[in-house]
């Protein structure tokens, strides 16, 4: 959904600030919020304004024809509008909302914030969204906690706080919209966007003594001349066809080669690009299952393997200040 221009672009700065201050007082940031008159806003929706126009049309018609039943119809529509205000409010009133968690994402992806909604009675057609992101619609059954994953665009790495989430509903007829802006202290960890590269360009310690090469099957290393007993599948047939003689391809496994990813030693100028490349390397090495360490300006991680290590490294890359 295209974001378009938000109201923020139109409002003068000072008003935005005042609005923020006001709403912070009105609906202070809380982990869990119970909706009530204090934090719910309600007004006619666009269809509701259309409905009002319809009421005026009917009133003019009924008055001009002096027709009491038509007048009663006009009043009926007006009464329905009044009743709808209460029904719409009651649909949100007393609802408890809590921010549960959000899985870390890479910059530029959609983060999914999970919210928990509970109400003592059934609620219908609630929608949760951040302005500019597609709304998630949900209906609740009485007493059953319902979890909704609401997408928000995570543009930059870091500990992203998407801000106030909008919870709204126009149940039952769409004539009246009741909404609230909730600051549920949402936080999403956003890793740097991985930039494709090869870890060997940055990795240090490959030629180190500490890294031992063992004949293996993982990585292509070099060619050597054929000796009887070598497997035919390893023969470099290309070279043989070119008439250079019979060679076999030699593969190695890196056993215990501690690779260091060093932020300071990277050739790129842009720190964000460096972090993105490091992110890719960390992911790649994590997938290969090879131990690696990371040196950042303020932090260093000793070489290790495993999922937790990768997560720690990614988290450090996400919140690293350079």
């Amino acid at each position, binding site marked *: 959904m295209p974001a378009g221009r938000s109201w923020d672009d139109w409002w003068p700065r000072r008003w935005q600030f005042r609005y923020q201050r006001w709403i912070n007082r009105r609906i202070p940031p809380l982990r869990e919020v119970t909706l009530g*008159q204090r934090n719910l806003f309600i007004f006619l929706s666009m*269809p509701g304004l*259309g*409905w009002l126009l*319809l009421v005026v*049309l*009917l009133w*003019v*018609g*009924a*008055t*001009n*024809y*002096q*027709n*009491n*039943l*038509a*007048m*009663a*119809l*006009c*009043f*009926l*529509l*007006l*009464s*329905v509008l*009044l*009743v*709808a205000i*209460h*029904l719409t409010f009651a649909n949100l009133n007393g609802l408890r909302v809590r921010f549960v968690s959000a899985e870390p994402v890479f910059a530029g992806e959609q983060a999914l914030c999970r919210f928990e909604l509970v109400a003592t009675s*059934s609620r*219908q*057609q609630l*929608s949760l969204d951040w302005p500019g992101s*597609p*709304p*998630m*619609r*949900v*209906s*609740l*059954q009485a007493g*059953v*906690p*319902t*979890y*909704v*994953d609401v997408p928000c665009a995570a543009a930059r790495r870091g500990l992203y706080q998407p801000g106030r989430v909008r919870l709204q509903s*126009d*149940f*039952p*007829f*769409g004539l009246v919209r009741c909404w609230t802006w909730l600051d549920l202290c949402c936080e999403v960890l956003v890793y740097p966007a991985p930039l494709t590269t090869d870890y060997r360009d940055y990795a240090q310690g490959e030629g180190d003594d500490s890294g031992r090469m063992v004949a293996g099957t993982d990585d292509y290393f070099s060619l050597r001349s054929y000796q009887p007993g070598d497997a035919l599948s390893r023969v470099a047939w290309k070279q043989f066809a070119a008439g250079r003689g019979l060679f076999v391809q030699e593969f190695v496994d890196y056993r215990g080669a501690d690779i260091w990813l060093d932020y300071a030693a990277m050739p790129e100028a842009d720190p964000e690009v460096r972090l993105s490349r490091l992110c890719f390397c960390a992911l790649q090495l994590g997938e290969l299952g090879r131990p690696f360490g990371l040196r950042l300006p303020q932090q260093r991680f000793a070489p290790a393997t495993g999922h937790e290590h990768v997560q720690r490294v990614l988290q450090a890359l996400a919140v690293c200040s350079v």
Partner: protein
Amino acid sequence: MNTVQSASPVDQLSRPALLYFLSVLAASGLLLSQSLPWWLLAVSGLCIGWRLLVFLGRISFPGKWLKASLVLLCCAGIAFDNRTGISLDAFVSLLLAGFALKSLEVYHVSDARRFLYVAFLVLMAYLLYNQGFLPAVFALVQSLLVLAALAAVHADARHPGFTLLSPLRTASIAMAFALPVLLVMFLVMPRLPPLWAMPLQKAQAKTGMSEEMRPGDIDQLAKSADLVMRVTFPAGVPPRDSLYWRGAILDTFDGRTWRNACDCNYQWLQTGAMKNPGAEPWYSVMLEPHGNKWLFTLPASSPHRNDVWGNTQGIFRYRKDVRERMAYDVWAVQETLPQPLTLLQADRNRYTQLPEGSNPRARALAKSLWLAAGTEAAMVRQVMDFYHQSFGYTLQPPLLGDNSVDDFLFTSKQGFCEHFAGSFVFLLRAAGIPARVVVGYQGGELQEQGNYVNVRQYDAHAWAEAWFPTRGWVRVDPTSAVAPERIQHGFASLFPESEALGGMLGINPFRPGSWLGYWRSQLDYLDYMVSRFVMEYDSRSQQSLLRDWGLESPWRLLALFMGMTGGLFAVFVIYLQWRDRHARREAPLTVAYRRACASYARCGVVRTLDETPLAYANRVQAAVLPNAAQFVELSARYSACCYGEPVAKPALRQQQRELQRALHRHAWRVRYAG
């Protein structure tokens, strides 16, 4: 636990919503079926059917060209039907045509909503055409259906709790709350006069009285049981043989047709300007729309309003054609005979006018009877005797030739009231006595409840009035000489099983006396009540109602409104305060502890949010503030009181109260003494 992962926003109309939408369309067509051209109904049916088949997956949506040609055809048809000018019919036809055609391509929620709004306009058009109890009930049901459709359009049809009936349930709840509000609004909302003139619907081809009387006119009316009017007599209904509802005077005869030559022959006066009859009205009439200006009244009575004109002959006309149900009150007036009792020569000529040379045998008969009688009264008696001897009353009179009066009097001798009235006036005029035909209705069906009479089309009647030099105009009903039951018991009793009525009265299960007839009369009574109290509720009755409540001026009404709204609001706020009383008020003990903390905060040691009382007290002691040791002790007690082992309630209360007092004292000491 219930997780929603991908409830994406969809603006597409759900299948239940579409079903509701189509049923709203079908119901709109049904409601307007009487006022719309048949082809438009056929088009609506076609559209509904097509959309249903699309819904069932049998066929696909119609192509662009087919839709365009349908639109063009409908527009052309409506333009052709309304070529004479713009009327309400054109507006309604256009609305329904658009509604039906749009159903062929309705796909989005917003489209559906817009068209459901149109459904309310269509419903209003229906109410302009139809008023009364049943239309009100139908309108209510239709509103419920449209509201349900609106709810269905908005509902999340994938929610497990959703059923086909749940939108209807939602709409019913809303309606149940809305109806009392509607009632209050209806009673107190101020009414305005029409803002500007609106195009009216065309006169509908209905049976009804006409300005002319030809043989065979009235017996056409006799086949219709449509309601003409309801008349309420607060002081009891007079005997039915005196209920002659005069509509028009027919004074000119051309040998075949009796007609009202010209209304300008009479002097018309605004009845509102006449002398106020005072007292209570004699009876009130609720007249169904008939498309003419006529108002029907009993002899010696007059409505009293500015938009009704009356002439000296006791005939009344409304300001414009009666196209909507209208009510008027009628007062009894003392008939004062003009003194001296004379007929102007011009009037005498008019009331003795006969076409030259026609009906010679009738003229001869009149001459001979007049010679024998000598006086007007005797002459009338002679003619009535003549009818009584050998004439029959029938609904299927034989066809009459050129000399229609002669043919009737001497050949067929079978006729309907118009034959008797016409020939009677002819005979009197031929004898030189001024006479005229009066058309209107006679009698009516007495309703036990409510002191009122229903007059139907088959009560249409024609009778005569003759000028007696001593008594003025005297009503003579020649039909009573032939068929007195017609006058005393009504038309229905005379032809209980008449084929001519198309079985309407005879084999009709609704005839009076049967159980269906009972329910019919109950329904009729309801309709009557609704009409009386709803249709005729105008600003005048509103004012009188408000006056009954002690609200003469609009300011008092406004004050009442404000008072009621404010009062309700106040009650609501008080209720909320009461409901959240525990949540809002902090325990007095906490307040006391906070105060103590605040007094230390002035000294520079502020308690942070995550600090326990004991940790804070230790910090205070470390900062060497006054009375810190005592504060540590009080904090320990506070901590124990709030979070310690549960103690019996009275003991706890006692502890709390003491601690509270100690904390207050401490705060004071730190602040002012320390």
